[in-house]
């Protein structure tokens, strides 16, 4: 791992992070330093520990061991400083679905202590930009997957965080919504903020990110600028498959009964 980043510019600094669920080791000693102001992709196959890692980094899950600092503040010792500076879009957790989109934003913003008028102003703009204005009075329970991701993103952006953590923000999202989300995120990082998002879609990560961390079986396999991680491979997909050790496996070889009509 290369230490390209100075001490002061790290958005996230993780040291010796461990998490076990019973016998299962989900995260096995992660050390990670993510530079500020970048669009960072956390990639890995399903079950690599992406969600677990992001949950621990954002303070939603207590690690067994290790420390996490976000913009210089310890997540577990100084939650006040950290929680005010981060925005989160978790995967697999609900929203308050019995609120309408607008009510959800009003609730999230006020819960974070923003003045009501400011929350309403920002909510109107976010709903407009994310193409949710027409559905703002509909209950979130009636939203589609893409709309849920967008309203979740709006709630995460509302308090103008320094670092934004998004767990699978494009999972199950239609191309139009994906493009909208992308536009908002690109504008956000251009202003100097940091976005950390997890995905297993390599093409997406390759086109969006300028910094990548590859995670497999609870460990970091590679981290650094996109070009560096890609190395000699033409695509990130190729580099990724080699890193997680999935290359040379002929997936179809044993399934000689598959295809060619009914058994």
């Amino acid at each position: 791992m290369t230490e390209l980043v100075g001490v002061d510019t790290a958005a996230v600094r993780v040291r010796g992070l461990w998490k076990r669920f019973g016998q299962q080791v989900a995260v096995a000693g992660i050390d990670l330093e993510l530079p500020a102001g970048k669009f960072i992709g956390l990639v890995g196959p399903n079950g690599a520990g992406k969600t677990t890692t992001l949950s621990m980094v954002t303070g939603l899950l207590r690690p067994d061991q290790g420390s996490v600092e976000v913009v210089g503040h310890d997540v577990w010792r100084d939650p006040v400083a950290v929680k005010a500076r981060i925005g989160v879009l978790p995967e697999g957790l609900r929203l308050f679905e019995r609120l309408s989109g607008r009510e959800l934003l009003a609730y999230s913003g006020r819960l974070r202590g923003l003045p009501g008028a400011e929350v309403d102003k920002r909510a109107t703009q976010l709903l407009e930009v994310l193409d949710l204005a027409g559905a703002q009075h509909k209950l979130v329970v009636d939203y589609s997957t893409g709309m849920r991701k967008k309203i979740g993103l709006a709630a995460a952006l509302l308090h103008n965080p320094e670092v934004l953590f998004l767990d699978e923000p494009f999972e199950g999202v239609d191309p139009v919504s994906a493009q909208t989300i992308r536009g908002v995120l690109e504008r956000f990082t251009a202003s100097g903020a940091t976005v950390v998002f997890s995905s297993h879609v390599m093409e997406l990560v390759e086109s969006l990110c300028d910094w990548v961390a590859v995670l497999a079986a609870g460990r970091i396999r590679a981290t650094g600028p996109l070009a560096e991680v890609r190395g000699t491979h033409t695509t990130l997909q190729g580099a990724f498959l080699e890193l997680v050790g999935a290359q040379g496996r002929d997936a179809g070889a044993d399934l000689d009964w598959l295809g060619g009509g009914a058994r």
Partner: protein
Amino acid sequence: MTNVTPTVVRLKLSLLRNGLRQSGGRRAAFVASAVIALLFAASQLLGLIALRGHAHIDAVAVIGTAVLALGWAVMPLFFPSGDETLDPTRLVMLPLRPRPLVRALLAASLVGIGPLFTLLLLLGCVLSVAHDAAAYVTAAVAVVLALLVCVALARAVAAANVRLLTSRKGRDLAVLSGLVIAIGAQLVNFGAQRLGAAGLGQLAPVADVLRWLPPASAVGAVHSVSEGSYGMATAQLLLTAGALVLLVAVWARSLTQLMTSPDGSTLQAAEPSGVRGRSSTGLGRLLPAGRTGTVMERSLRYVWRDPKTKAAWVTSLAIGLIVPVFNAIRGTGSLYFACFASGMLGIQMYNQFGQDTSAFWTVAMTISSARDAYVELRGRALALLVITLPYATLVTVLTTAMLGDWPRLPDVLGLSFALLGAMLATGAWTSARFPYSIPQEGYKNVAPGQAGLAWIAIFGGMVAAALLCAPVIALTIWLNVSANGDAWTWLLFPVGAAYGATITYLGLRMAAPRTAAHVPEILTAVSKG
């Protein structure tokens, strides 16, 4: 095709095991509730056998079975734990025919503490009325039939209830089912009171009807054989078997429908819901500013909009009104029954974070200190008080008016408020200490493996609330029995109210640091299901 029954039974066993494996506390809670249930069942079994030969034992056995069956019918709707059996809608994508599936799920339903408890009680019932060899043979058949009817009844009701809960129209009806149960429980209560007054002989006419009603008819059959009336016994057994077939058929039908038709999420999308939410700013203006008002507004919206929360509230409101008012109508009730309203509504403070489901993460992201947690909990308690305080007062005044016992009003109100305060305090504390998930799909109110935890939180909390009220209760009794006490009973109103407010404050203060320190653990606990 392979037999699915052993697979499904094994699946249920692993679900139970895995639910328990997750934490030591949960395991302890489960074991404790199992031991208590089985001890209770065993003592009932011994008691019923000891009563053999008593003049009215047949009536007791028949009615006991009927009450047991009623419990099974009511359990999936009302009680938060109950049957932790498989949710059939999870099996929707598997190519299973309805018949083997129903058989398998019925078999899986027989696994658990509930069925074992029922089996012990049923054994007690049949053994207490069986007097010869033929009766013992009948008893064996009767126990199996009655147990199956109980289980099938619970599953049929549960399946019907899922269907109700998945459509918006049905949800309003499901809310009413709480009312029906509340009234039913009241009728049972009156029955029991009358019995206390007039002795077991009163049971005979009721038992004469119930001995023809499955599954009590199975126990009736055993009694008939003991009496030598074999024809009647055969009819009663056939009736029970017929009921079983009918229940299984009804259940299979709703199960098939449930698994082959679109669920609530699809139906709801078609509903126009554009106007809602616009008028809500009015509510917001009335509430205090800052986090307190924000939390209150969300809590109050959920009382109205979230079907599970709404059903719980309607049930609490209904029972809180029915118990004191019905008792007053009958003229036998005490004014102190009015405290029921406080007690029932105070329950809504329990498992606050579980009511949020995994959406609690939104709250978790904004709790970084004990102060945040305190304001959050206080907001929720205040939202509750907005409804509860006027309601409890209304119920108390209404009960007083019906009984015409106006001089007692201040002490009952005082006691009510003290109890409400104690419920809020214990509710806040158990919310932080024993959070558990409330699955949003289906009829269950507790995720598998957390039932013991839920029982301990609710019942432990209620006992603790009663104990916390002890000083006010003691003062009430003292003022009522001492010579000049009557002149001072008005004092109980301010004392009770102040006591309730103080204890709520202390409860919130104690719960807040615990909540703030365990935010990730609470999130994990409420995110199952």
